[in-house]
């Protein structure tokens, strides 16, 4: 009882964070900061407080208050962002990462209450997208984005949004094709029943009628729904290789031609039902295979990391310029927390660049005037001015992205089982078909042709084509449930084939949360507030961790703030002189036994104590190092090697740990071990691993929030599932085994069918039963076996 009361008192009504001061109270409601309070005021002024009824604390914390939407006033940028515009209305779609609950949905669809110029809002919850129609004469795009920002829903606008729109391609009509095939399949089945059960002699005219109708229904199935199979088969012929689509297309063509022939010549009923069923099941298999997670984007590159525009300085004025128009010689201004988009020379200001996303090194780097700063760094501290020396497309970072590893297509990756088998399958099928034709030809021409077509019909690898997609999609949904998201179904097979694991260190096997902070000092609340205020002004990761640890305190002005790179911070708060940082910086030499990183504090010259920050490894790193027996394991880190000693216990020997690796080094390392014939899996997190992730046979991006930016990869893994990696690897091998087993089953069916087909006496009824039965067996076998395997690996 008592616990819930204190909780009520201390958590912010809007965002649920702890309220550390009593300063922000409105109508008995506590808020953690001015930002949260003003969002509440804004909502209550528009009578939108129902927002708080659907969920507890649905808001996002508004502790930060920097505004940088100036570039949205630039017409050239606006035009690229919007979907549609005319004299009256403009339509735009935003990606809003914060959408997480039904309150968000409710509020965002009620935006017109806050501003009547907004006509219409629709949220796509899973995609976290907001579609807005508004009158641009009354509210500009910039004001709209600022309004969204004010209520706590900042849209993520990146360079990729601008480019994605331009390459948007037409959707394929798979669902429509399935609908047509299913429609025809149902009708043809009905019309074929009388034929199966026999039609009396005086009802022969019906037989003709049904036959003609069946041919009619077959037409859209072959030429609309099944068209892609012919295209794909033709392309594979042009490339002089045989893919699985070739025997499928052959089967469809033979089925159709033989049906037409039999109906025309009144010699039989044809195989229209088998034809429609085949195409229908194949398309369903294709649909299943295409299963993707639209709440996760895999196609990320530097463009989703970079902003849309950057502020340039021209004749003393600041002007936002789209990144594509940024040229050599432009003077740009970068504020706190903004990303440097192109290689540039520092002209003015104190640069303290956080390259953690590029190099993995956690400590911000200080740069002197005249030094070149590479693109991708994030300025922490005051605004700086730079002169661009290389256009965005040629900067260090983009060059890394544009390395040939990126432009390389999937073809030299591991060939899937299906691709390997279908080659031999097709050849064998053609040999049997031609063999039976030649066998019957001397004695009975029509029987020879009948046998030839029957072989192609019966052996059509429908079940084979279905086994992989159904097994894979079942596996994919199991991985999904375990917070491991694969880009597509082929990745499961790649996962099963790897024999070498390479890991990045920072952010991948270590976590950056505050669980490992310990305070070894007696600080009263006032002193904590002093430390908090000093640390608030530093973007150093350690300062950020300390701020998070201390919780929110009242804001106080800081004067004389100085951050000495690699040492610590010093400043004057509320008249107290506070020093935070290394032992030498703070001036204590009490030589306490060392374990982990320490941050010392002194207030007004009195030594107070220190924070201990132990490097926290991800849970389950032990499990993963146990993989050593089956896999070759390496560690590649961009950091210095001060943790070598601690890390070596996870690896076989210290020769497998590599430190001070640049992104290019990582890529080259992967390439080198691939030359030795190893199938490499790279696990990384930052942009610095992006090259290696792409170069490897299978790249996994580890992230603590799957909706955050992570580099382009084959799979995205939530940090919480890191410990399950050995299970994932074993399960992927099970999956491949299941595919092999289902292949054997499908072959058995084919052999039974073939033994009838080579004699040339294939009845339509037999084909019509064999095809669906084999399909159903395969689908049920694969789904059951996959779920059984998942339970065995403790993944379900």
């Amino acid at each position, binding site marked *: 009882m008592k616990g819930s009361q204190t909780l009520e008192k201390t958590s912010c009504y809007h965002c649920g964070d702890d309220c550390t001061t009593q300063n922000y109270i409105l109508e008995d409601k506590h808020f953690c900061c001015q930002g949260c309070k003003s969002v509440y005021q804004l909502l209550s002024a528009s009578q939108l407080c*129902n927002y708080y009824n659907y969920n507890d604390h649905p808001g996002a914390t508004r502790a930060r208050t920097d505004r940088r939407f100036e570039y949205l006033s630039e017409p050239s940028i606006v035009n690229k962002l919007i979907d549609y515009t005319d004299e009256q209305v403009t339509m735009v779609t935003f990606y809003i990462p914060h959408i997480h609950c*039904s309150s968000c949905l409710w509020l965002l669809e009620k935006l017109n209450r806050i501003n009547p110029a907004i*006509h219409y809002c*629709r949220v796509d*919850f*899973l995609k976290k997208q907001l579609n807005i129609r508004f009158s641009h004469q009354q509210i500009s795009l910039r004001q709209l984005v600022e309004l969204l920002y004010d209520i706590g829903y900042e849209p993520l606008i990146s360079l990729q949004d601008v480019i994605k729109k331009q390459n948007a391609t037409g959707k394929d009509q798979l*669902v429509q094709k399935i*609908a047509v095939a299913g*429609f025809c399949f149902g*009708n043809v089945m009905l019309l074929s029943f009388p034929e199966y059960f026999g039609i009396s002699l005086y009802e022969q005219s019906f037989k003709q009628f049904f036959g003609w109708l069946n041919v009619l229904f077959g037409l859209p199935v072959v030429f609309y729904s099944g068209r892609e199979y012919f295209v794909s088969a033709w392309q594979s012929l042009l490339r002089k290789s045989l893919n699985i689509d070739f025997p499928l297309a052959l089967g469809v063509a033979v089925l159709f031609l033989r049906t037409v022939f039999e109906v025309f010549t009144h010699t039989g009923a044809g195989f229209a039902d088998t034809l429609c069923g085949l195409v229908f099941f194949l398309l369903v298999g294709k649909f299943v295979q295409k299963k993707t997670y639209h709440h996760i984007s895999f196609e990320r590159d530097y463009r989703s990391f970079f902003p849309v525009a950057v502020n340039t300085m021209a004749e003393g004025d600041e002007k936002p310029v789209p990144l594509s128009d940024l040229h050599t010689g432009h003077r740009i201004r970068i504020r706190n927390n903004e990303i440097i988009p192109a290689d540039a020379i520092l002209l003015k200001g104190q640069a303290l660049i956080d390259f953690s996303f590029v190099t993995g090194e956690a400590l911000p780097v200080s740069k002197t005037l005249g030094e070149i700063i590479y693109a991708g760094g994030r300025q922490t501290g005051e605004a700086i001015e730079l002169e661009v020396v290389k256009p965005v497309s040629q900067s260090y970072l983009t060059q890394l992205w544009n390395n040939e590893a990126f432009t390389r297509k999937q073809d030299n990756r591991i060939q899937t089982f299906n691709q390997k088998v279908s080659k031999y399958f097709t050849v064998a099928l053609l040999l049997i078909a031609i063999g039976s034709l030649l066998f019957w030809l001397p004695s009975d021409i029509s029987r020879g042709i009948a046998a030839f077509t029957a072989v192609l019909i019966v052996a059509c690898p429908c079940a084979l084509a279905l086994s992989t997609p159904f097994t894979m999609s079942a596996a994919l949904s199991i991985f999904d449930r375990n917070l491991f998201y694969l880009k597509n179904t082929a990745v499961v097979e790649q996962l099963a084939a790897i024999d070498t694991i390479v890991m990045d260190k920072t952010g991948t096997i270590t976590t950056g949360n505050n669980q490992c902070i310990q305070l070894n000092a007696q600080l009263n609340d006032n002193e904590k507030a002093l430390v908090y205020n000093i640390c608030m002004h530093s973007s150093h990761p350690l300062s950020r961790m300390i701020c998070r640890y201390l919780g929110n305190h009242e804001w106080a002005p800081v004067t004389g703030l100085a951050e000495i790179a690699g040492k610590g911070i010093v400043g004057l708060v509320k008249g107290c002189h506070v020093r935070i940082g290394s032992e030498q910086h703070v001036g204590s030499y009490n030589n306490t036994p060392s374990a982990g990183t320490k941050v010392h504090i002194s207030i007004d010259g009195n030594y107070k104590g220190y924070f201990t920050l132990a490097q926290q490894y991800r849970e389950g790193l032990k499990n993963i190092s146990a993989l050593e027996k089956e896999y070759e394991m390496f560690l590649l880190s961009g950091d210095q090697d001060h943790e070598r000693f601690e890390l070596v216990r996870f690896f076989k020997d210290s020769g497998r740990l590599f430190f001070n690796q640049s992104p290019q080094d990582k890529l080259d390392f992967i390439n080198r071990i691939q030359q030795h014939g190893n199938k490499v899996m790279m696990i990384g997190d930052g942009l610095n691993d992006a090259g290696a992730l792409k170069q490897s046979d299978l790249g996994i991006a580890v992230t603590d929030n799957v909706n955050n930016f992570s580099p382009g990869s084959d799979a995205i893994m939530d940090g919480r599932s890191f410990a399950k990696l050995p299970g994932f690897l074993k399960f992927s091998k099970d999956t491949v085994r299941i595919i092999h087993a289902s292949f054997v089953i499908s072959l058995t069916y084919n052999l039974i069918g073939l033994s009838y087909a080579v004699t040339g006496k294939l009845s339509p009824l037999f084909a019509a039963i064999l095809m669906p039965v084999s399909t159903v067996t395969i689908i049920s076998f694969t789904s059951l076996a996959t779920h059984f395997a998942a339970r065995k690996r403790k993944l379900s």
Partner: protein
Amino acid sequence: MSIIYFLIACSVLLALVFLTAFFWAQRTGQNEDLYTPSVRILLDDTDDADPEK
């Protein structure tokens, strides 16, 4: 038995109507977002003067 010609024509026509309905639903984007409407329907319509659209 000639009535069968008429009956089959009727059934095919009916099926075609359903197929067209499906195509229409697909084209107007009704199958694009299969989750949000299920949440939206649970939210109360408390508003007095809500100028929808």
